[in-house]
């Protein structure tokens, strides 16, 4: 039975299929080249880019939980905040002065917290997981509020960072911080990518898809969940530590409920389960937030909320475009806020009623786009057609 020869052609096909799954695509490489280019081309934007990189890393860590293991969390900021305070305390009291080492130590501390609290999320439904994760974050925030070492409600002030690796001083324009954050993001992304494409990652997807069957093929379901929860907590902790190091400050806001909710939102905007969702979501979220906050400082959340509603109603891309159009019309007509609300509600109600028709149009457009894309792909890959037909 063991030595029965499998058809070598099929084996080769299987090798090819699995290898193609893990190969870097052109889009992926382009994404990271753009990120690299931003260091040199967007010098004046390094502060917000640093925020984006940190947020992206935070969202990436949540994607490992939600997108690959199916664990929902409303308290992921617990690990972000824990890492942030660890990095702050290590620097302020001179325990570990070198930032990279301190980052590592903060990540490991967050992993330890993740490991301990992971046992709370093993049992129960999505709802109980939401409540438990939320609870852990609330408890942690209150502890940080009461402790003296964290600076309580005033936050952790007087954090002074030593040069990275003893050489690269944090500068006032944020260039060092951005390059540093981007490198850390890239390294942890590589690790995350490795994890999801490994046998361990495959077993996580099986656990997410059907835990009953996963255990019936010999997988220790709870063990795998503990492992990924610990890893994701560590990554979130590193993201938090990066924020403290880049801003030389840590406040209670790192543990806020809003931070947990935002990161979940970002992942849902970008899409969970393909690693780039968190990164793209973070870029979009931060840019839109920044833009809206400049244009309508008081009411930017209204437009963000509208975008979310439209995305749920009409799908990610079409919804975002429609929300942007409504916003553009209101801005072009210079409508005061109250009239903007009335106008928006009227438009959304109309679109909502016409939703079945609109969905028919949008799916027709999508089908067209997919066909065009497939045509392009066929043209590009014709020369390298070593895969069996019908695959």
């Amino acid at each position: 039975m063991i030595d029965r020869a499998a058809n070598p052609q099929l084996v080769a096909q299987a090798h090819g299929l699995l290898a193609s799954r893990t190969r870097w695509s052109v889009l992926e490489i382009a994404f990271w080249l753009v990120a690299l280019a931003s260091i040199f081309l967007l010098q004046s934007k390094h502060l917000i880019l640093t925020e984006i990189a940190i947020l992206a890393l935070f969202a990436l860590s949540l994607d490992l939980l939600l997108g690959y293991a199916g664990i929902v969390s409303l308290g992921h900021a617990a690990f972000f905040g824990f890492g942030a305070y660890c990095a702050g305390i290590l620097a302020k009291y001179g325990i570990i002065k070198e930032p990279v080492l301190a980052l590592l130590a903060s990540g490991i501390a967050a992993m330890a917290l993740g490991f301990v609290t992971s046992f709370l999320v093993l049992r129960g439904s999505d709802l109980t997981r939401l409540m438990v994760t939320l609870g852990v974050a609330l408890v942690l925030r209150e502890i940080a509020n009461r402790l003296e070492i964290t600076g309580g409600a005033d936050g952790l002030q007087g954090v002074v960072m030593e040069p990275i690796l003893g050489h690269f001083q944090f500068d006032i324009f944020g260039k060092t911080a951005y390059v540093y954050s981007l490198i850390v993001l890239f390294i942890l992304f590589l690790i995350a990518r490795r994890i999801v494409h490994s046998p361990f990652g495959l077993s996580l997807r099986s656990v997410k898809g059907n835990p009953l069957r996963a255990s019936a093929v010999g997988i220790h379901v709870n063990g795998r969940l503990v492992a990924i929860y610990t890893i994701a907590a560590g990554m979130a902790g590193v993201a938090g530590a990066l924020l403290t190091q880049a801003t030389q400050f840590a406040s209670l806001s790192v543990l806020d409920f809003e931070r947990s909710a935002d990161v979940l939102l970002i992942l849902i905007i970008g899409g969970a389960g393909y690693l780039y969702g968190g990164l793209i979501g973070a870029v979009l979220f931060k840019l839109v937030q920044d833009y809206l906050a400049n244009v309508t400082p008081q009411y930017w959340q209204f437009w963000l909320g509208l975008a979310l509603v439209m995305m749920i109603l009409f799908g990610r891309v079409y919804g975002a475009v429609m929300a942007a159009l409504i916003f553009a019309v209101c801005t072009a007509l210079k409508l005061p806020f109250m009239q903007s609300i009335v106008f928006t509600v009227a438009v959304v109600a109309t679109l909502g009623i016409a939703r079945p028709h609109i969905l028919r149009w949008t799916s027709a457009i999508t089908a067209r786009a997919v066909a065009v894309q497939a045509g392009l792909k066929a043209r590009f890959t014709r020369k390298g057609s070593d895969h069996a037909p019908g695959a």
Partner: protein
Amino acid sequence: MPPVLETKGLIKQFGGITATNDVSLIIEKGARHALIGPNGAGKTTIINLLTGVLRPTAGTIWLDGQDITNLEAHKRVQLGIARTFQINQLFAELTPLETIGLAVSERMELGRQWWRLVGSKGIVIDESVDILQRFNLADVLDERTATLPYGKQRLLEIALAIACRPRVLLLDEPAAGVPEAERHGILDAVAALPSDVTVLLIEHDMDIVFSFADRISVLVNGALFVEGPPEEVARDPRVKAVYLGEEVHG
């Protein structure tokens, strides 16, 4: 030599209902053992007890003379008990290749490795492809499982259990819900199971049971009712009574 699988006084109660009532079952090595009984007799409950999905209220379960009553489900699989489900329990988002590869690599204890890429171990792929071929799944090895025809999914259900390379295989109604045209494919697969694998089959279809089994246990109301070789069970008037839906006393 102890039997490969044995239960002693197995009892399972759900609230006030006794789903399994003092079942002492002996399954010999290499047997083709069928467990039959009317709807609600508690057949699937026994499978769930044997595989660790449920814990018994009382009684013990032995595999090759080892008490496994309190072992977790995944540990029993590692010891050599695999099962299929009456209703497909597959990984909808994975392909058959990934599904079988998953089980093979778990059996080889490679499943915790996070630093290696899927597909980088030749022996896993060789064996996975071999299994997919044997179960007539090679033509769909890269389709999403959710999109497969029901008959193919049913084959994958059995192939997945075989990929665990079990010593004891528990088949819970393997042909359930399979359209007539695809039925023989399933039955061929069941008939072609390696002879060193002990099989416990739960089945409603008497044609399948009598063509496959060398020993039959009849379960009624959670208790063992009759047990013996097929000819004997077929002749037993009490079994006929149960299957004709008559009231049973005692």
